[in-house]
């Protein structure tokens, strides 16, 4: 699958309160969460983000709370994937579990600028910056995580009932 979009660039340590402030957590409706996605970090984001757009950020993206509402809000906002140097571990887990593609590459995260046109080959993890012509290789996804994605998320994988054990 080829993901393609314009980049919204953020810094390091983007926390879950920046992704979706706790004051909106009295609902779990994805559309409503999307309306406030990233608003404290960039007030223009929720109204101007286009389907397919990509978020690029520095290290430790998604640090803070365990709220699954964070990757849900990003996904519901239409963002096709997140590229970061590293991800906080609960966010990493949640993104796979709910089916938001994420890619780890320090180089790409550093080079790519706000507004660049970028494509990501989700299967191979190859990131191409169409604006500069540079390509990057994201860290490989463990096979187990790939199985979760192929199944369409963790719940689907369990529902199929063909796995006596999770791993």
């Amino acid at each position, binding site marked *: 699958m080829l993901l393609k979009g314009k980049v919204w660039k953020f810094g390091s340590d983007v926390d879950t309160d920046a992704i979706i402030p706790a004051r909106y957590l009295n609902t779990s409706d994805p559309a409503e969460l999307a309306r406030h996605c990233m608003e404290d970090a960039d007030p223009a984001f929720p109204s101007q983000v286009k389907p397919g757009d990509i978020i690029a950020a520095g290290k430790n993206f998604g640090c803070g709370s365990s709220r*699954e509402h964070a990757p849900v809000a990003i996904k519901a906002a239409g963002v096709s994937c997140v590229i970061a140097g590293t991800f906080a571990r*609960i966010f990493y887990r949640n993104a796979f579990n709910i089916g938001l593609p994420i890619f780890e590459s320090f180089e790409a995260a550093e080079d790519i600028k706000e507004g660049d046109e970028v494509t990501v080959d989700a299967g191979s993890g190859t990131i191409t910056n169409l604006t500069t012509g540079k390509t990057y290789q994201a860290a490989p996804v463990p096979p187990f995580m790939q199985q979760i994605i192929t199944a369409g998320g963790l719940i689907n994988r369990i529902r199929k009932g063909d796995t006596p054990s999770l791993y």
Partner: protein
Amino acid sequence: MPMTITEKILAAHAGKEKVTPGELISARVDLVLGNDITAPVAIQEFEKIGVDTVFDQERIALVPDHFVPNKDIKSAGQAKLVKDFAHKHNLSNYFEVGRMGIEHCLLPEQGLVGPGDLVIGADSHTCTYGALGAFSTGVGSTDLAAAMALGETWLKVPESTRFEFEGELKPWVGGKDLILHTIGDIGVDGALYRAMEFTGPIIENLSMDGRFTMCNMAIEAGGKNGIIAPDEITRAYVEGRCRRPYKFYRSDPDAKYARVYHYDASRIEPQVAFPHLPENSRPVSEAGHVEIDQAIIGSCTNGRIGDLREAAKALQGKKVHKNVRLIILPGTQDIYLQALKEGLIETFIEAGAAVSTPTCGPCLGGHMGILAAGERAVSTTNRNFVGRMGHPESEVYLANPAVAAASAVMGRIAGPWEVK
């Protein structure tokens, strides 16, 4: 093969002789936890799995604590969803307002977690229970849904990092200062994906409350879990309290660590973490003149009885500054009652503080003490991200309970030694 305490607990729950860092395992869980924000999503996902019953009615704890007592109609709807699910499945560990507390204060207190347990919770501060010598970590709602159905979860075995504390504690220095200093040293991703094992003579003499505070903030350094080897202090806490048999594990002397840090506690002063990251910590004495509008004492980090005693010590016979709101939230009903019996609540109210029923409330900008644009708070909570306690242009400074109390009296960030 030598193993760390974290590896031993994971191996035991995966039914294996040994595990090694990086290995993916499926592990049996002793307890799973959800709250009024994360459980509603988990319940929706649980319904999709297509099983009729939960894996064990005794081993699922549901604690509405973030927006309760319900702050608005939407929150009430979320809390009701959790309550209805608990009743439908006959869960024995659902905690209603009046009998509840902040989840990470409540579960250990109620004896629902013990040494050697493996616990996952849909709340990032689930890592708190490492203080008991358990493996516990935060997950998302989908993971909670899967665990409620299967009684197991998938985990990647983390590398371990050891933090050794030696020397002697200075006056007014506690677990909060040790952990803020550590995060200041290694950064908010300094322990990313790793187990943080706290050891050394200082930790061996630290109270259970201080240990809970330290393990609570492991996630603030990106850690997967925080953990402290159980000892006599742990035993005194869990004996007669823990509802299930427990087991003490310790790291083998030659276990492998990704890194070992040494700290001389004699050099650590009470800390304050400046906005907007917990890693921006520095000694209170170097805080400069920072006027505050609000002080919060409570949360899963510092809402325990030991914390309230520290705050009362700094507040005894003093008055809260005229420009400051001091809000104190005991972590559980039991802690509240104990504080009442000890006269701490009287000290607080006489000083001019507001005392609340247990709730997360202002810690996550929920209710009970939201900041306006331009306002500043000193808080005993664990996060000072942008907008964490209210308006995106407000500021939160993290500190220990005595510092928060002293700051409330002085009207600016201050150490308890400054209160005359």
